């Protein structure tokens, strides 16, 4: 077994290692130099397409069909996407391994799961006219550079919304890059454009010149953590500066005449420059190391290192992680290195093993930890085992040790080794695995249709498995050519009883394949009523969809179905559909009242709901600007109800309403005052206030207003008009249907005590004390006294005396005396 340090390289103060992961990657006939190669983050798939500017070797036998090919890192072809439209300007990946292909007219196709299905969108903002020059991608978005130096950013793919960034100055963009929104202080994407001699920073709001002089910069690249920027200056130097352009950290002179083909970061500490078959690794402080290859080199940066892909090898170049350095560095005296040596000695059955342990006894727990972590960094299974053995040996000596990390690491390594296997081709580093999360790793496996491995890993790590089954079923539906019943049976047999399975997704896949019947069949197994609805609508099962929507209780869904239904089917059958479903009818009614009253009218007509229909006309009459149309509407409303006897009161009311309008119209003409809009009572009141008693009386008889009401209205109107004479006249009458007390109260309230007092004797139904009170309110204590005297109420008299003025007291004293005498 070769030493792990064999492929280490010292660059400055740090060690870098280049791990060969796969060999004989691509078909030797594939001329990789003619392709643009883009790797997905976290050691994901690699997309190849033939660049426009690359020369085609003329081969008569082979017609050149453009395509985008997706390979695993091990060179296994996962999928070939034939390309038929437009010139590809950029291909990129998102964090969840979604492939994005951008053409020169700004059309973007987004392939979600490494399959051929895509969702298209366009970036707009003038991309059609000016054309897309290139794109830069980050974890979940990209920026496109257009021919007129406009920049368009797309920040999410589930609902892409291309956003135009601040405009950049004109001039040729020599090189450019983006800093993802998560890594900027403004939380919006920043674009660095090398134009002329300087670099511009553009974000959503503004464009700022950084005032550099050493341009034009051929290459510009930002580090994975967004803190540093590497620039390739015009005079062949590489600068590493802070992303705030404040400080320059290192400078390196390549002394090569031709500028490099590519410049990328390797982790956050080093920069890699690539020429056709040569790469330079530049560490901190300008230290560098060179590597040479036999064939053309492509770079694919990742968060903790860089993948180097050539026709025959796939390598991973990274800084040697600290635990590995501690354990393996030549002459290392770290406890972990001693512990690893101990295991060697143990295997040789040498007593030195124990000596080693005793030597590092104080730091043993730390040594165990380092060994465990170093194991995670190894690609060689041999060294993984060796390190874990060392850790295991070390922890057996310790009295107390928490083995969780150890167990987790062994689990992680089993998973990593499984997916690194060349047939799978996911050479994840431990750090990438942690950042990617096991869930998303499983998703990647599922996308590669490695269902068995995905299931095994999920079960091993206790992850939910429902999505794997659903994906499998969708794939089954897409690819299987057998008859629908047996597909359905097979799927249901496999998926039934598994928790949380979404049959709706499977059914959707079936529908997309044009298998409507299969879709309906599968939908029946979906437990969530609401989820079935959109698909049922699509397959044309409207009334089932409506029922399911109603069942879900979600009114939004019901309304949605109703709106689509209304568009699809004739009105009469629409009504028939909702007729038997009261909730649906209620929703139609409540929404139609604000926007579609004609629909409502038809609905009421069809259902023979006359009262509602008539009310709707009344509703419209109210909106009518003029009396004419209002009366017409009222007539129609009355006509609707006339045939039926049960609506007689409503008909009468509608007719009265018309009559009132007629009256009011006439009054307006005669009296030039506004009457329309008033009620019957208000009309009478207004007439009285204007002194038109006769007309008011006419209204009373015409509308059969009950006497009491009329008297009240008249009383209040006269009082407000201060028409004392007329009130006095009224008071001469013998009887009032509302009694005389209201007269007293209202007139008193208006301040006419004299007139009010006239009504006191007429209130014969009231008790004596009440009447006394009334007199007092009018300020007529003497009269009150007389009242009391009549009733022979001595106490009342005494009370009155107490509140009376001096003059009145005499009077009252006289009455008291009279009362005493009378006794």
């Amino acid at each position, binding site marked *: 077994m070769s030493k792990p340090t064999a492929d280490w390289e010292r660059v400055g103060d740090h060690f870098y290692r280049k791990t060969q992961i796969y060999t004989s990657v691509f078909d030797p006939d594939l001329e990789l130099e003619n392709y643009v190669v883009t790797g997905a983050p976290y050691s994901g798939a690699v997309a190849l397409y033939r660049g426009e500017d690359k020369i085609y070797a003329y081969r008569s036998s082979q017609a050149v069909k453009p395509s985008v090919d997706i390979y695993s890192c091990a060179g296994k072809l996962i999928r070939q996407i034939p390309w038929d439209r437009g010139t590809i300007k950029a291909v990129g990946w998102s964090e969840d391994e979604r492939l994005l292909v951008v053409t020169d007219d700004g059309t973007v196709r987004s392939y979600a799961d490494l399959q051929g299905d895509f969702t298209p969108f366009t970036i707009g903002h003038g991309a059609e006219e000016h054309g897309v020059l290139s794109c830069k991608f980050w974890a979940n978005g990209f920026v496109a550079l257009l021919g007129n130096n406009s920049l368009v950013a797309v920040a999410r793919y589930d609902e892409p919304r291309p*956003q*135009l960034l601040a405009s950049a100055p004109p001039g040729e963009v020599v090189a450019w890059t983006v800093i993802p929104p998560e890594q900027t202080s*403004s*939380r*919006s994407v920043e674009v660095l454009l090398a134009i002329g001699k300087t670099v511009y920073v553009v974000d959503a*709001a503004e464009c700022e010149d950084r005032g550099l002089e050493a341009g034009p910069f051929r290459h510009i690249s930002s580090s994975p953590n967004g803190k540093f920027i590497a620039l390739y200056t015009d005079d062949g130097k590489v600068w590493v500066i802070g992303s705030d352009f404040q400080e320059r950290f290192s400078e390196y002179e390549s002394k090569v005449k031709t500028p490099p083909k590519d410049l990328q970061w390797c982790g956050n500490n080093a920069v890699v420059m690539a020429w056709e078959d040569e790469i330079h690794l530049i560490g901190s402080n300008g230290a560098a190391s060179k590597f040479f290859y036999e064939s053309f080199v492509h770079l694919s940066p990742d968060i903790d290192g860089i993948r180097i892909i050539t026709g025959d090898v796939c390598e991973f170049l990274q800084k040697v992680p600290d635990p590995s350095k501690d354990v393996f560095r030549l002459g290392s005296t770290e406890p972990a290195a001693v512990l690893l040596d101990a295991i060697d000695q143990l295997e040789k059955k040498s007593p030195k093993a124990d000596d080693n342990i005793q030597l590092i006894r104080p730091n043993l727990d730390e040594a165990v930890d380092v060994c465990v972590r170093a194991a995670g960094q190894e690609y060689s299974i041999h060294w993984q085992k060796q390190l874990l053995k060392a850790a295991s040996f070390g922890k057996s000596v310790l009295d107390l040790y928490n083995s969780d990390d150890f167990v987790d690491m062994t689990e992680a390594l089993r998973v990593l080794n499984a997916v690194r296997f060349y047939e799978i081709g996911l050479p994840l580093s431990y750090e990438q695995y942690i950042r990617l999360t096991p*869930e998303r790793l499983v998703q990647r496996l599922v996308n590669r249709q490695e269902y068995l491995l995905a299931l095994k890993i999920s079960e091993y790590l206790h992850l*939910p498995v*429902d*999505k794997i089954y659903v994906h499998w079923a969708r794939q089954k539906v897409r690819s299987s050519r057998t008859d629908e019943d047996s597909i359905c049976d097979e799927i249901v047999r496999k998926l039934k009883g598994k*928790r*949380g*399975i979404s049959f709706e997704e499977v059914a959707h896949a079936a529908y997309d394949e044009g298998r409507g019947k299969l879709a309906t069949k599968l939908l029946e197994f979906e*437990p*969530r*009523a*609401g989820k079935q609805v*959109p698909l049922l609508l699509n397959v044309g099962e409207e009334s089932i969809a409506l029922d399911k929507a109603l069942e*879900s*209780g*979600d*009114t*939004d869904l019901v309304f*949605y179905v109703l709106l*689509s239904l209304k568009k699809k089917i004739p009105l009469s059958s629409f009504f028939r559909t909702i007729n038997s479903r*009261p*909730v649906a*009818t*209620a929703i139609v*009614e*409540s*929404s139609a009242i*604000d*926007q579609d009253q004609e629909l409502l009218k038809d609905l009421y007509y069809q259902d023979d709901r006359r009262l509602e229909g008539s*009310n709707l006309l*009344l*509703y419209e*009459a*109210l*909106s009518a600007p*003029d*009396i004419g149309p209002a009366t017409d509407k009222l007539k129609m409303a009355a006509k609707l109800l006339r045939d039926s006897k049960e609506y007689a*009161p*409503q008909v009468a*009311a*509608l007719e*009265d*309403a018309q009559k009132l*309008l007629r009256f009011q119209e006439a009054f307006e003409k005669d009296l030039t005052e506004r009457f*329309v*809009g*008033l*009620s*019957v*009572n208000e009309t009478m009141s207004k007439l009285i206030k204007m002194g038109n008693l006769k007309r008011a009386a006419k209204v009373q008889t015409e509308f059969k207003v009950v006497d*009491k*009401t009329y008297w*009240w*209205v008249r009383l*209040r109107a006269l009082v407000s008009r201060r028409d004392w004479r007329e009130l006095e006249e009224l008071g001469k009458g013998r009887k009032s249907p509302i009694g005389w007390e209201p007269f007293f109260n209202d007139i008193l309230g208006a301040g006419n005590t004299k007139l009010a007092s006239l009504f006191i004797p007429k209130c014969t139904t009231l008790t004596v004390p009440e009447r006394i009170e009334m007199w007092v309110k009018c300020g007529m204590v003497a009269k009150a006294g007389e009242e009391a005297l009549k009733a022979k109420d001595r106490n009342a008299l005494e009370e009155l005396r107490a509140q009376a003025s001096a003059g009145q007291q005499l009077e009252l004293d006289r009455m008291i005396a009279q009362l005493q005498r009378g006794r």
Partner: protein
Amino acid sequence: MAAPPAAKAINTQDITVKARRDLLHLLEAVRGKKNLVIERSLAGTVGLFVKFSELQEYGVDKLFFLENHNVDSSQRNIIFLVRGEAAKKVRTVAEQIRLVRSESKIDHDFTIIWVPRRTLVSNLILEEHGVLGEANITELNLHFVPLEADLLSLGLEDSFSSLCLRKDPTPIFASAQALMRMQKQYGLFPRILGKGDNAKKLADLLQKMRSEEDVNASSDPSNTYLTSFGLTPSSIVENLIIIDREVDFPTTLATQLTYEGLLDEVFTISNNQTEVDTSVLGSAPVPQAQQQPEGRSDSSPAPAGATKRKVQLDSTDKLYPSIRDANFATIGPLLNQTARRLQSDQENIKSRDQSVKDLKLAFAKLPVYQAEQAALKIHTSLAEEVAKFTRSETFRRTLEVEQNLLIGSDPGTLHENIEELIARDTPLKTVLRLLCLESCLSNGIRQRELEHFKRMILQAYGYQHALTLANLEKMGLLVSREAHRGFLNPIAGAAGQTATDWNAVRRSLQLWVDDVQEVDPDDIAYVFSGYAPLSVRLVQCILQKSYLQTLINPPRPGQAAPPPAAAGTAGGWKSFEDTLARIRGATVDVIQKGSDADASNARRTLRGGKEGPKTSIVFFLGGITYAEVAALRLVNRELEKAQGGRTLIVCTTGVISGGRAVDVAVEKRSFGG
């Protein structure tokens, strides 16, 4: 052992904090300055947890109301904050986006925040208007918002009209979603009890959602591991009691007689704020008023009603919490007491031999004292204004009719009073409330009498109110006795009574208490000075069985008090089934068990068999009145006294009053435009 504070069980403050954080986060996501367009009804709700100044800190430049249609193009970013369920609002949003886009010279960035969720219909409408691709769409999961620590509201102002008038079950679904979220947080409600057809629907929906949650949880990419969240019953919440507003219309219609209730009747309170004429309070805002969130009034054109002043009515006020729930009859003395106490405090400060230490102490107390002084001033003025209203002739007569109806006297004798009220042009809503109250209590008014009243109303208030009357009939508030028999709620299930036998229920649940104590109340009847609201009595049927039983069959003197019925609510509706059968609507009683018995058992073992503080959630579907809130607070106090640590949390779709309930039906327009 001191019972752990109930607040620990369900902390409604968390909701406020979360809602605030979520909203501000969404605002922050839009870079730079922005204009915020907000739906008017939502503005009040949002105002409960964010102040305008905070919005400004997050880059909000101007605030517009959606209904005003006056969005300008002064900022590049325009954010809409609107309820996504209402098609009408969605359409307005779409129209405004189109308008701004066509009129403005600059390129705008639109963001729409749908509350509480993005709906399919909203997508459809935006697409129809061709603006779906234009706007960045997000959602703010705003469900319950605390009005007080013990009162949560969904802030659905039109829930009553949706449910009763339009028979549109949207509020039921919204409630189910909100309660579902609560279950996710606190565990399944072990028992769901309820009364009313809509309550039944809500309970069914909750159970259905629970079974669907399994599938949802695992297909939601954001929580792959929390799948087993609420499959065990809650250890904090004991039960959910759903009261359907339709079960108890009379309580809604009756005039509330608590201080808060009357403030609502006179000035209307919305989102803990009321607007009062400056002539009542004086226009110069006392220093205290500036500390209050002085309205997040539109910063755009100057506030329309400059003569109105906003008053914050919640527990931040020094005085309000202690008087809000008192019967109005006792407010005068209460305010007097406070005034005297403050005066004596003041004299103490002045007269005492002033050592430096004393001064320091007095100085420290000064702000509190000033705040109290200001509160006292406000509430004295408010109470005077309310008293002006309660002393009026109309109020006296209305109340007389109302109380007679509630006692159960023959409504025929009261008709003359009502007729007089109509003839004297009393506000329409007052008259309608009385008629509806009669109709509800006696299951309809006799056809002939009803027609007579209808004619009088049409003549007195205008023929447009034929629509008002039709609406009331549709709501089941004002029907003829003959029609009532055949009256069927179109969305009601077949189960359950369709009418309540009020006379029987009044007796069996003691809905009328003759000698009610308004000071130091001992029974909920104090909130209506005699009438005990049925809705709260129903809650008592579950939570205070023994109390209710002693109330109904008072123990004869000498006889030992009956042994207290088993504490807790193990019985559900037990021993009141007969009464319930006489009340309209379905009865709900569901026990929710964890799907995994082992897990539930394990959980119980972990708790060590100790019963922690138990909370009952009372949910009013269709709205609650302040009087009922006051009554429930009384129940809560009694519960805490009797069985330490038990609490009530009151949840509702919105706050309602008789005026607002009737107003839903009233036709606002008149002839001639």
